[in-house]
């Protein structure tokens, strides 16, 4: 029963990670004082839960070998290579194997589809920018879009594009504009498009899992804060904060996105004008929790 017990522990770990721990983390305020470590923590939870689910399935499937986890997986592998993967397979073994394989296959194909769709959408956006936006004369590395709506964004890619509309340039003073561009450079420099990619794969079919519902929004918000920090290290945080208020009140995006979105800007402005914006202790705590999350499932399976 040894590996069945492990499977139980791993399943409990998965439930613990993606439900109560996720809800707690989504409400935790301290993580905003170390956004980059918090993003890593969110990724660790997802990684660990995936690992533990596949591990639990394999535990169930390999119990019949009575050779421990590593030995059992080894024999399972030999069976597959030897062309008789189903030999001696009982119902629980088959269910376990199905779980492990399904989670693996579904996750990989989901990520694959989202990556492909994202790459194509970004390529089209880049093509349109090439035709419509002009490289800025005064600010190297940024593109100017002649449009009255105030927008500023970073299009991720191998060579990320930073786009500022003429509406933004009219709205902001020089110090604010410099801070906003530095914020976008933060996104580009820290490859936030890449960091966000696994989160965008957690689409509709998974929304019944609290992690899939909460993680993408939380990570998106934390990445904005990380880019704020990047800009605040080089420009006055108050310039960035006032630019943020100016842009967010004039952009007039669709009403449906209002309530939840506003929370992000309010928290970010308050964070920028606070004196304790970042904290080493928060970073260490997030790093520690993330390490524990990833090590836990490995420790469970390797100990038997």
């Amino acid at each position, binding site marked *: 029963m040894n590996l069945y017990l492990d499977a139980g522990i791993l399943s409990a770990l998965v439930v613990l990670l993606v439900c109560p721990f996720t809800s707690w983390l989504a409400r935790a305020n301290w993580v905003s004082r170390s956004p980059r470590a918090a993003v890593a923590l969110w990724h660790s939870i997802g990684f660990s839960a995936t690992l533990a689910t596949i591990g639990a399935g394999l535990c169930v499937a390999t119990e019949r070998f009575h050779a421990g986890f590593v030995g059992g997986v080894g024999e399972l592998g030999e069976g597959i290579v030897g062309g008789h993967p189903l030999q001696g397979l009982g119902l629980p073994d088959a269910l376990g194997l199905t779980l492990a394989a399904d989670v693996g296959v579904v996750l990989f194909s989901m990520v694959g589809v989202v990556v492909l769709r994202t790459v194509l959408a970004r390529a089209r956006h880049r093509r349109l920018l090439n*035709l419509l936006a002009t490289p800025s004369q005064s600010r190297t590395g940024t593109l100017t*879009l002649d449009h009255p709506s105030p927008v500023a964004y970073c299009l991720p890619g191998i060579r990320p594009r930073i786009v500022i509309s003429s509406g933004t340039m009219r709205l902001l003073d020089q110090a604010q504009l410099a801070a906003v561009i530095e914020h*976008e450079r933060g996104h580009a420099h820290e490859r936030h498009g890449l960091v966000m990619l696994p989160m965008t794969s957690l689409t509709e079919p998974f929304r019944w899992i609290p992690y899939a519902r909460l993680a993408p929004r939380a990570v998106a918000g934390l990445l904005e804060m990380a880019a704020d920090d990047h800009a605040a290290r080089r420009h*006055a945080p108050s310039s960035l904060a006032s630019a943020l208020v100016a842009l967010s009140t004039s952009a007039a995006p669709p009403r449906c996105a209002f309530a939840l979105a506003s929370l992000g800007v309010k928290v970010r402005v308050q964070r920028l004008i606070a004196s304790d914006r970042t904290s080493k202790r928060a970073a260490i705590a997030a790093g520690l929790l993330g390490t524990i999350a990833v090590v836990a499932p490995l420790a469970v399976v390797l100990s038997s």
Partner: protein
Amino acid sequence: MAALGELERRVMDVLWGSMGTPLTGRQVADQLPDRAYTTVLTILDRLRRKNMVERTTEGKAHRFAALASRETYMAELMVEALGSAQDRQAVLVRFAEAVSPEEAVVLRQALEDLPEDSGSKKP
């Protein structure tokens, strides 16, 4: 490659400037006097492969027109940039979302209450 992108932009500007009338390669080239006719044809062909330009043939002459107006493309960019698309995080990393007018008043007040030099950490 930046020069190529700039040339594509200028060719599209010419086509958009024709108010929907398809132009021959020669007519486009005439409006870009600093570029050779063959270069302009190459650019038109590139744009056609990118699905930005369509080519019609009348007798021996090829005529070129933009497939969509400048405004259409601009609207598409803006929809993504302003975040109307559900999965916008997939494409863009945006700077600001919206706050309600009431919140904006509170936040502006908080900013004004700051001491003048607070937090300016210039490198």
